[in-house]
């Protein structure tokens, strides 16, 4: 039971063109900024939007194939969807919402109700089965929506920003809870989110979508250590540059080069964490070879540290302790010396291998 899709949807001024594959039991997160086409991709999978090109195959069955004029309507796809704002039917109670799917598939009323009650018990809502959606809290509504999607025994489970509507505390609980249920789902799961933490905590594999295209895929470790676009680098909190490598030297702009520990040739990415950048009031003597003059552009709080945005040579983010910031008198406009240890920077080919 695997998913094999090449989703092409054209809209005014926007084209989604993404290849998406997921094995049975695998959780794939579609991660991307707003407007990247994540929700369109999800709607295409569910059959709420028809493909303009490409194909969609689930468990060996063609669900959408414009070239062959195949389109299976959403009600015949057996795909469960948890919508961003849940879309629980407001006039039905929690148990009736969950029983809705099985009822539509011809399960007798009493049995559908009994199964729905059992399912709601499993998501921890045994006491709330008779409540209307408006009487449920955000976290409870999310669980009802999950139970409703699972009640039909879907071949593919789709979740659109499942945690976006929740406050921070509920989010933490619900994430852990959701993780357990996703692990129990035997078919593939596709999860759409713009939150990298949700994606990394819930998914086995990440697919990064930008401007309707897949820019990077991989597991959390691969994505966090080797980002390939500025968006991903920002998400995982790394400085990322593209340049031309010639041995241990990477030329980033005409006047700026970094020495790295890994000798490579050709187009490469260089990534390093803000904490790897050290700042000095005067030119440091000795070891670090990568030293340059920089100007403080902005200072902001970042966890326990202060994040310093620097310009001059390259635009770079550096993390320093508040004590160091005070000592160096870091404020916008201040000139400092920045240095980076060669061993702290990761270098990898820009061309996909």
């Amino acid at each position, binding site marked *: 039971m695997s998913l094999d899709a090449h989703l092409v949807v054209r809209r005014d001024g926007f084209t989604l063109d993404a290849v998406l594959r997921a094995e049975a039991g695998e959780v794939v997160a579609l991660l991307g900024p707003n407007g990247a086409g994540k929700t369109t991709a999800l709607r295409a999978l569910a059959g709420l939007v028809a493909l303009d090109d490409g194909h969609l195959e689930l468990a060996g069955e063609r669900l959408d194939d414009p070239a062959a004029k195949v389109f299976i309507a959403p009600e015949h796809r*057996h795909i469960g969807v948890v919508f961003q704002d849940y879309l629980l039917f*407001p006039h039905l109670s929690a148990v009736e919402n969950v029983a809705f799917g099985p009822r539509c598939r011809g399960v007798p009323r009493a049995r559908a109700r009994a199964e729905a009650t059992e399912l709601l018990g499993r998501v921890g809502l045994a006491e709330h089965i008779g409540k209307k959606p408006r009487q449920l809290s955000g976290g409870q509504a999310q669980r009802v929506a999950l139970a409703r999607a699972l009640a039909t025994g879907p071949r593919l489970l789709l979740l659109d920003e499942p945690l976006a509507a929740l406050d921070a505390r509920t989010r933490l609980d619900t994430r852990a809870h959701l993780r357990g249920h996703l692990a129990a789902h035997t078919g593939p799961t596709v999860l759409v989110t713009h939150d990298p933490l949700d994606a990394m905590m819930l998914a086995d594999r990440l697919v990064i979508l930008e401007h309707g295209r897949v820019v990077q895929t991989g597991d959390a470790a691969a994505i966090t250590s080797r980002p390939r676009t500025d968006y991903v680098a920002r998400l995982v909190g790394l400085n990322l540059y593209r340049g031309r490598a010639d041995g241990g030297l990477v030329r980033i702009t005409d006047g700026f080069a970094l020495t790295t520990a890994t000798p490579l040739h050709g187009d490469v990415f260089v990534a390093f964490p803000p904490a790897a950048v050290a700042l000095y009031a005067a030119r440091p003597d000795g070891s670090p070879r990568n030293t340059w003059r920089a100007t403080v552009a902005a200072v902001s709080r970042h966890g326990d540290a202060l994040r310093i945005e620097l310009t001059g040579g390259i635009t770079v983010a550096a993390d320093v302790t508040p004590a160091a910031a005070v000592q160096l008198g870091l404020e916008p406009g201040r000139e400092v010396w920045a240095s980076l240890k060669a061993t702290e920077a990761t270098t990898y080919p820009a061309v996909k291998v």
Partner: protein
Amino acid sequence: MLPLAGLLIRAPWTTLPQRLTEPGVLAALRLSLLTATLATVVCLLLGVPLAWLLARARFPGRRLVRALVTVPLVLPPVVGGVALLLVFGRRGLVGGWLDATFGFSLPFTTAGVVVAEAFVAMPFLVISVEGALRGADPRFEEAAATLGASRWTAFRRVTLPLIGPGVAAGAVLCWARALGEFGATITFAGNFPGRTQTMPLAVYLALEQDLDAAIVLSLVLLVVSVVILAGLRDRWLGAP
């Protein structure tokens, strides 16, 4: 309010009980209620699907259809009656065929009254139901579809309950309009006591002969409408 007060002041209260029991009054009242209710049912059966099409489906000429639906609102009812005669009359487009095939003729029958009332009252229903549909989030229908509901099931079990108040309001408006219908009815169905003479027609006829009788009939129509509308409003619309 002033015209209503006028009715109440001029009412022949002394002879009221006797006048109310005249057979013509009851027959006209019964016919009015019956035809208005049947017309509302016809409007619901035809109007709700039409409203759904206008609100949800995309098809060429949708604007034109919407404009046509509202035509009876601006058309003088008498003109509507003439138009109905041209279509359903014995020599009309559809009427000729009906007469030849089934020996059935719509004008000047009780069924004709229902058709005339439905024709005039339909826009009230379609407009309120379409408005309610536009206000309802179409994504609920999508959610129902992903759960395996056919379009019809999704409409019946999700959309219809969501727009229930809108449909009820439309039906009440539609019924009230049908009850007061005069022009199209008298043109298309004539004015035969017991068969096509509804209350407004009876009032009009009485006006030419006996002013007191007209006032009594008007009062009856007024009281019945107010009682029924007030009752429906409380029950269906949840008005305070």
